[in-house]
């Protein structure tokens, strides 16, 4: 193995630690225990090395387990366990709007990243996070809209390739844990969290009165709950 200067190793290790640390804190907020969140991260990392080919030839496509199947599966789980039908509806609407905006962004935005305020890698999750926050005002909604939105955009691109006969490749979640799909999910939640906390602070705390019980239930972090059912007694 080629030897690498220590500074470079520290930089890479640190980037990875911060990235997965953030990811774990994000998943932690999604109806998962600390251990559950770690398990999902582990599945994403291990799954990053598994590509499942879908089509081959001029227009090839594949789906990565860690970069797509695990986060998408998790989003579907979140949708299935949504507290209210309103939450479900908003998340789905958010997904469709995000997917549409991403397709528009990819085709309409300039071809050179320098033309934009920030790189597309960060633009796509910001779009997803803003849409999800405005429509769903929820962290789970943000995660769902962002991950499924990118998935929709990728599928739309595959359809476009078939429609135009343009040779190309679509590796859904192909960059594994580092794919825009996963990054979008994480950044979208952080964004929703940041804007949400900021707004709640201005407002003087979250509104709990008159909210459905199922939603309030989900406000709590399961890992902080005591088994006896006396939550938030710290």
């Amino acid at each position, binding site marked *: 193995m080629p030897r690498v200067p220590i500074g470079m190793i520290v930089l890479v290790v640190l*980037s990875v630690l911060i990235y997965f640390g953030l990811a774990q804190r994000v998943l932690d907020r999604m109806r998962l225990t600390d251990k559950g969140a770690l398990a999902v991260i582990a599945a994403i990392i291990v799954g990053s090395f598994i590509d499942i080919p879908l089509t081959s030839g001029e227009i090839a496509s594949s789906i990565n387990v860690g970069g797509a199947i695990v986060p998408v599966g998790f989003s579907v789980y979140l949708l299935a366990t949504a507290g209210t039908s309103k939450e479900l509806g908003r998340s789905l609407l958010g997904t469709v709007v995000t997917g549409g905006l991403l397709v528009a962004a*990819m085709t309409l935005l*300039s071809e*050179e990243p320098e033309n934009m305020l920030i*790189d*597309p890698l960060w633009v796509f999750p910001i779009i997803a996070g803003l849409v999800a926050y405005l429509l769903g005002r929820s962290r789970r909604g943000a995660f769902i809209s962002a991950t499924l939105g990118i998935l929709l955009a990728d599928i739309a691109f595959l359809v476009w390739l078939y429609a135009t006969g343009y040779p190309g490749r679509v590796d859904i979640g192909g*960059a594994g844990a580092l794919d825009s799909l996963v990054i979008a999910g994480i950044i979208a939640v952080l964004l929703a969290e940041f804007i949400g906390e900021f707004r709640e602070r201005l407002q003087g705390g979250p509104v709990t009165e008159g909210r459905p019980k199922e939603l309030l239930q989900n406000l709590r972090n399961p890992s902080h709950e005591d088994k006896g059912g006396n939550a938030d007694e710290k």
Partner: protein
Amino acid sequence: MKSKRVLAGIVLTVFLLGIVLISQKERGVVSAASLLRFWGINYETELSEGKYYEMVDENGSALTMTALPVHIGDEFWTADNKHYKVTKVRDNVAYAKCLGTEDIAWKAEWDDIPVATSIPVQGEQKDDTTIGIYHTHSDESYSPTDGTSSIRANGGIFKVGNVLSEKLKSMGFNVYHDKTPHDPHDAGAYHRSRRTAVKLLKKQPTVQFDVHRDAVPASVYAAEIGGQAVTKIKLVVGRQNQNKQANLEFAKTMKAAMDKTNPGLFEGIFLAKGNYNQDLGPRMMLIEVGSDTNSREEAQKGVALFADAVPKALGVYQNKASQPGTKQISAPDANRSKSGSWPAIWWLLGAVVVGGIAFLVISTGSFGGSWKKIKEFTGSEFGKRRQK
């Protein structure tokens, strides 16, 4: 409730619009057209012919030209080691201020490097050094040779990549050249090529090249080295990621090595806005091999000469890692105030700490509250679980 939501939407829209206007003001024009341009809205799949940026110094002398849009804050290092920073951009002309001359030269002692451990020519270990090559803009082509500047999913740039790949292989490197097309040439290209870049990273390359060509007048890149016409090479480093400093140091080492092996081949280092997948690692290098107006043969010769510099540059790094501290031979950046990966590490840590504190203060409403939350957090995450 509903009115609050509408209000939140309006505030966000105004905020975003404000950012757009401010960024446009920086460029000196605010108009509907410039707003559209800000979002990069244009329907072209390639930059229109003859549209490029010219960078000039304080005296108005040309430093370089590039089809990559130039922004205030971008930096440029010329062949004579002058370091410039862009202070103003007007009508495709970028005005840059000279920040001084840097010492980016090949040091005599580097030649004494006991040909670094796993660099080729060393026998058994030679297969250890892997290099990845891919092309984000797979359509890029060379008009004089390919007949057009853009060929769908099979640009002339692939053939330039072939030459680089073959030359490096002949030197004993283990090369993976990925020819996945990432067309069309739009904002999604890096989103798609990111997947190729990560796929290549799984082969554990020591360095990874994203090979492009520029779109400026041929004279910018034209050069004659060893009696043959070649194109020069520009190195591009993105500044929107945590690896900026490390990649910049690698670019400078490459520059020193190019000056040593083939003087005249280096066109410049452009530190530009953007990410270019360089967040993925500290040695992800974007190279511009000539322009669409140069012939592809010249570009192929240029990139072959570029390959000569690769083992030299990597040798510096491997030596740096394998030598004890005192005998360490440093990369060109070591003599300056900022060195390699460490500033990037401090920036990253700083950003996490500042971001974290800001978030805590906002979410708890006070510094006292933040401290309580931190104590709570460390108690529940790292402390012993309290028994009921």
